[in-house]
């Protein structure tokens, strides 16, 4: 099993940290930076999710004889 339950905690941690950074940057008056931080955090998390979904689809394709 390549994937780990730890990745769930990583995603949750990234979410909380990004929310914190967003609040801090907003209070410093840097709205654009806050939005960029949110976007980049989302892209990182999306990469993790897409990796596992790709793995899942490959496995389904293998198990259910979808070669053709």
């Amino acid at each position: 099993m390549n994937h780990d339950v730890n990745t769930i905690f990583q995603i949750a941690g990234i979410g909380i940290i990004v929310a914190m950074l967003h609040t801090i940057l907003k209070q410093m008056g840097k709205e654009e930076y806050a939005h960029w931080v949110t976007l980049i955090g989302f892209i990182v998390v999306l990469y993790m999710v897409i990796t596992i979904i790709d793995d899942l689809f490959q496995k389904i394709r293998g198990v259910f004889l979808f070669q053709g």
Partner: protein
Amino acid sequence: MTAIDILQIVGLGLIATFLVIVVKEQKPVFAFTITVFTGALIFLYLIGEIQHIIQMLESLASKANVEIVYIETVLKIIGIAYIAEFGAQIVRDAGQGAIASKIELAGKLLILAMAIPILTLIIETVLKLLPS
């Protein structure tokens, strides 16, 4: 072994639910990605068991001299149902019921299209049996 597996899966679901509740107040997008990830992880756990079931089905079919084409079609249909259900549930969780319904519709239509050879075979057999 199966009992431990189900405990692991239930624990995973509970932990993911708590994390989703915590994160949702700050950033709903990350909560949604946690949901997707957990769903994919549970499906990955289950697919090993499904592989065993399918191997048993294949061995049974080969013993019963069923043609492999039919078994392959049935397996593909099960796979389509599996993927369509997964996608539709995730999309419905994200609040897009309309898109989820379309995914389910696509799954049903593809299954019907895949079952057409078997259906025509059944109808031809019945027609042969009927006295003309």
